[in-house]
């Protein structure tokens, strides 16, 4: 179907697996990373069409990942924040993300948001 590449960055393995499986079922090519540093490594293997980014992670959090990503890759891939923060919109605004999804979310919301952002990119 889609064939778009999505990089999912989240330190919770269950949630990571949930998102990966959901997107995989819809035909996305999914790559996973459990923190910002691993996500930067993953970028070495190719630029995704969209990054789904958790904010609070060990080793390197979403904010620091975004800063470094922008340094080297500018806005090559849109970033959608997936966060449990009290104010998800604020978290997204603070790092200049393209969108946000608050946890917990409906899978429909996840799929709609991803579809919209890859279509725009």
């Amino acid at each position, binding site marked *: 179907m889609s064939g778009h590449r999505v990089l999912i960055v989240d330190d919770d393995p269950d*949630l990571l697996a*949930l998102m990966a499986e959901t997107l995989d079922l819809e035909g996305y090519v999914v790559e996973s990373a459990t923190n910002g540093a691993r996500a930067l490594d993953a970028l070495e293997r190719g630029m995704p069409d969209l990054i789904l980014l958790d904010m609070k992670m060990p080793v390197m959090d979403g904010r620091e990942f975004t800063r470094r990503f922008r340094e080297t890759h500018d806005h090559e891939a849109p970033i959608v924040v997936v966060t449990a923060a*009290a*104010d998800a919109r*604020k978290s997204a605004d603070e790092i200049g993300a393209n969108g946000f999804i608050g*946890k*917990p979310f*409906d*899978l429909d919301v996840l799929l709609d948001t991803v579809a919209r952002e890859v279509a725009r990119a």
Partner: protein
Amino acid sequence: MEPLDPSQEVHPQGRLDADERGNGRAEEILGAVRFAAESFLTSQTMSERIDEVLAHLGTAAEVSRVYVFENELAADGDLVTSQRFEWAAADVTSEIQNPVMQRLSYARSGLEMWSRALSRGRIYEARAGEYTRSELDFAIPQHIQSYILVPLMVEGSWWGFIGFDECRSPRKWDSAVKDALQAAGSILSAAIQGWNARREKERLLERQRAFTEAAWRRAAEWEAVLASIVDGVWVFDTDLQVTFANEGARRIFGARRIEDLLRPWSEYVIFAEIFDMSEKSVGFEEQPPNRALQGHAVSDVGMQLVLRSTGERKYLGVSAAPIRDSSGRIVGAVAVATDRTQQVEFGRLKDQFIRVAAHELKTPVAIMKGYAQLALRVGDQTSPSQVDRLRAIDRGSDRIDRIIQDLLSVSQVYAEGFTLHFKPADLRELTVAAIGSLSKEAPDRQVLLDAPSPAPVQVDVDRIEYVLRSLLDNAVRYSPAGGPITVTVDVEADEGLASTGGRGTVTVSVSDQGIGVGPDKQAHLFEPFFRAHTDTPYDYGGMGVGLFTSREIVRQHGGTIWFESKEGAGSTFHFRIPLGEAG
């Protein structure tokens, strides 16, 4: 008055002798007067040397008795006089113990001729053969042949008299003697005036001493009170010099000794930096003591200190008031500070706990919800009963999520409010959408919508959705018997109304025909965690924060929220916010 004179018969020869004896005594009398003057000068009180003086006078004038009477007003206003001192010659009886000589009424004893003369500052004299009937009543028992009374005038008023009795013969007082006796009276009058002044001064001093002592005692009491209270207390003079500080004040500023605090307020920067509760530095003029000196009372204003010595942060509630003298002039200020550091820190800890707990709960809820939905999505081999179970997990996750949202909202309200993301929206559309999602959750409920016109507003969409959802949820929850829920969106565009910027307002009202709220509960509806139907058959769960949070959201949109409710008949909740075009 016809004079009666039995004494003339008693002592037919006495008169001539007396006249001769009286003459030539003036010099001796003046000597005694001089002695009197010297004695009185060195006396602290009248009684100290008066007996000596009277004896000298009596001896010098060769009389039988010398005495001093003092006037006073009786309770009924009658002028009475009492014998205070007396000297009596060896051959006559003393009358000082005679009760008749105490509180003797001039008017009632027929002695008006005394008071008439004496009160005008004139000498009164009489002798046997000329006595009135009432004079005889005195003269005969005391064997008085003649007497002379010299008025004592003190500060212009008649104080009493000094009198001289002659019991040996009806003596005629010659003018030189009378002058000398008058001089004695004047000396005594002046002395009495001096003694009175001294006594008055001593009484004033005594009063002042008593007053000073009372003031000291009161001050000591207050100092003890101020020292023992936990709050910090400062007293300032008009130059903002601290003139008093207590132990609580020392603790707050972390000073070593209370004495270190007795310095100009402007120097307190050496102890700490002063901020308001929003971390802004407070200008010197705006600090509570300064405000108080300008005549403003400050009541429990939140302030923060950062101590320079330890870097410690303290939260205070500060009150201050001017101190005024009896004429209302400001003569200083007093400030009281309550250390709320522990409370504030506990509050922060609680908010932080709620935030962290809520945050940590969200991920597991997301996993539950997500996998339930995923299982439904890929459910080719899912049985109908399994579908129901998965949906129940999904709904349960949503309920947990609501609770988390509620907790976060309350903690946000308390921790300096929300961050709102305003953007243009149509409140009518938002209302329609909220009713739509309600219908998904409670498909059997009938909702009537009356929204004739669009309602352009500038709002935080998520927050306003929360308000609409809270009001609709409550309407469903508390009308268990069913019955339609009526929602109106009423736009009042008012070009002329300046208070709305000439734009007008929109009011959303949600009515149910449910159980309503009793009058005793109505006042508490907007309080956090208040649940009107707790422990009643109508307790449908929930955190009791929907209305509390909604009110805060509406308030931050510049609007108001209110309700009418009747127990057993239903409730209507309204909120009104300003209309606002995009941009």
